[in-house]
């Protein structure tokens, strides 16, 4: 083996491969990139493919649909919003590379709506160090938002898992104090964050008795059945699920196979997407009517109106825009599309609010000072302030009816509010402003 002879030549060949991939070299311009007189460029990272993608891969198309609608109406202060999306397949190694691409090659003004905790954690420090706004992150991990000194440019786009688990946990604990409550969670950051929230609400679980888990992403190919059997054997009456929607569907199917019928299921909102649930079970040969019946009675929480609330003014407006502007491969209306549209609406509102003279620093300070006044489809305000950057601070508890619609329990919607710390859960008195006729946000 002669190692040295071809070395120089291959190095040259490598350089050729490299230079093919190079775009024009440009000196880094001073000032804020990504904003011109005619355009604002936003960047989003999410799993479009791979095990973690189902459902969530619709968020980008929904957001883009709303931005396209805004652009068709003249954009924000005459600027069109362009959304550049990068698939990171939910692998942090790739997230780091694609973040660099968004920053340096696509020259984005801000990160917007990035999906995923364990991927976003790999880039959040770098994004903040570069003082790039990182707005409406689609992760409920409270660690991103509760210490703005650590991550000054990062703002949430989902209520934190802790807030949701506290509200849901308190509700279940109060209502079913005589029942045995158990949990099935995926053993990752999402599942553990939810567990911490339940613990704050006073719901503690005991391993092998009232608590079952599975490895995230395996969706039951390893031992989900035996974990659920343990819950069954211990007579758990109420099962809370903290897992992604596709795993929720497998859990329901497995429990049904084992003849396990807890009197109530409760599912954390990110795992309670009815469309994903029914699609998965449908391809398992479960008719839509049966899967709807399986879901019926399940308790869940939401910060926004349910996707199925056809009369809601925001749902109506967003649905129309989705029909007209969504160019994605799967534009079926559901929670994910609603969430994508809603954060796009909020981002538009914030960009309008900053005004013509748009800079990164101004956007960040606008969100910090005026964020809590921004309105959207959500039934709770954003929690943004100088001391926290967590998003929706309230959730309402609902129950799926026979048509897979999440409806308020007893017909009356009560929105509860709390924080990601140890604060109490109280009833919110927030009144959501209506959406304008042209479905564009209005800034005073």
């Amino acid at each position, binding site marked *: 083996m002669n190692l040295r002879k071809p070395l120089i030549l291959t190095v040259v060949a490598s350089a050729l491969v490299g230079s093919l991939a190079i775009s024009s070299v440009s000196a880094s311009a001073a000032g804020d990139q990504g904003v011109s007189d005619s355009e604002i460029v936003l960047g989003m990272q999410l799993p479009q493919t791979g*095990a973690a993608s189902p459902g969530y891969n619709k968020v980008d198309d929904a957001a883009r649909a709303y931005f396209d609608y805004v652009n068709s109406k003249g954009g924000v202060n005459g600027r069109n919003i362009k959304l550049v999306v990068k698939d990171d397949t939910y692998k942090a190694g790739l997230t780091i590379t694609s973040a660099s691409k968004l920053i340096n090659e696509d020259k984005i003004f801000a990160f917007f709506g990035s999906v995923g905790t364990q991927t976003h954690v790999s880039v959040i420090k770098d994004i903040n160090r570069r003082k790039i706004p990182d707005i409406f992150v689609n992760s409920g991990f409270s660690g991103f938002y509760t210490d703005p000194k650590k991550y000054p440019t990062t703002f949430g786009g989902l209520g934190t898992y802790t807030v949701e688990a506290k509200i849901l946990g308190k509700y279940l604990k109060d209502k079913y104090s005589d029942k045995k409550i158990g949990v099935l969670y995926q053993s990752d950051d999402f599942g553990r964050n939810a567990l911490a929230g339940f613990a704050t609400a006073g719901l503690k679980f005991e391993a092998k008795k009232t608590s079952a888990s599975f*490895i995230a992403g*395996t969706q039951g*190919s390893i031992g989900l*059945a*035996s974990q659920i*059997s343990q819950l069954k054997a211990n007579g758990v009456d109420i099962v809370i699920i903290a897992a992604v929607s596709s795993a929720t569907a497998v859990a329901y199917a497995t429990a049904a196979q084992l003849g396990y019928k807890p009197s109530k299921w409760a599912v954390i909102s990110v795992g309670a997407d009815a469309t994903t649930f029914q699609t998965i079970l449908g*391809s398992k*040969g479960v008719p839509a009517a049966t899967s709807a019946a399986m879901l019926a009675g399940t308790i869940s929480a939401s910060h926004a109106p349910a996707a199925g609330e056809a009369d809601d003014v925001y749902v109506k407006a967003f649905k129309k825009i989705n029909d007209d502007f969504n160019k994605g491969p799967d534009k079926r209306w559901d929670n994910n599309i609603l969430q994508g549209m809603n954060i796009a609406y909020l981002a538009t509102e914030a960009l309008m609010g900053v005004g013509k003279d748009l800079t990164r620093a101004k956007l960040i300070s606008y969100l910090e000072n005026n964020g809590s006044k921004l309105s959207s489809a959500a039934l709770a305000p954003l929690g943004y302030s100088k001391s926290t950057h967590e998003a929706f601070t309230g959730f309402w508890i609902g129950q799926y009816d026979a048509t897979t619609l999440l409806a308020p329990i007893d017909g009356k919607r009560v929105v509860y509010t709390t924080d990601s710390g140890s604060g109490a859960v109280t009833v919110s008195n927030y009144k959501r402003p209506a959406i304008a006729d042209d479905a564009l946000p209005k800034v005073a």
Partner: protein
Amino acid sequence: MTSFLTAFFSGTAQGAIYALVSLGLVLVWRGAGVVNFAQMGQAMFTTYIASQLIQHGYSYWSAFIVALVCGAALGAIVDLGLMRPLTSRKNSKLLNSQSMRTTIPVIASLGILGVLKALAGIFWAGEERGFPSPVAPNAIKIGQTNLAITGFDLFVIGVVFLTLVLTTIFFTRTGMGLAMRASALNPEVTRLSGIKVGSVRTLGWAISGTASSLAGLLVTPRTNLSPNTLDLLLIVGFTAAVVGGLSSLMGCVLGGFILGYVISFVNVYSAPENVFIAILIFLLLALFIRPQGILGSKEVRRV
């Protein structure tokens, strides 16, 4: 006691699947001396084909048959299109070395795995979907108590034993099967005795493709189908095959069930987070204590 029964039954049910996966691996190993890392990629691909047919209104069983035939075809294609040209390459400097002759096919099979996954992603958008089961997956009851084992699990166990019996008969009673064993043990002598070693090998790949396709069809009802979900099964199936003995059909089935119990008991008595590390420890122990596998014979181990 309930925990024990839970672990036992779900271990049996899972073990049957693992047995099928390791059976597929062993069939190729015996026939061609290659561990096929693309096996579950092939299974994933054929299960998607079956799923696609079912979604277009074909019956479960017609889709089942088509998937098995596709599995056989895919196995044969891998051999004819890739493995055979690879091994027949005589003048390559790289393949002349002993260790590289076993290493290069492994790399080739990884290439196939990557291509199949990417193609599945392109054809079916990588969307995660479920897969129906042929028999009602309801728990078996004794009196009023549900056992942690379903009718579908019993069906799987039945299929695995049927496959085992059929392959054993094939290898011991039919001329083709005997030729296959002979060519695995000594291709040169077999060739001299007038047997077409090449077609015998291809047949081995086809049978293995069918077996893994079957494994794909039988495991997906319990989990979901996506380009990646079956990867884990290959790793478990490989461990099962090594534990039982890569050269022994009976051994690999035994290994499959043992792995089923190991995973299930770790799951119930320890925690799911410990499963992967338990598999690794178990594999290392097996390799140290009995490297040829429980039922494997020392001579045949080609390492």
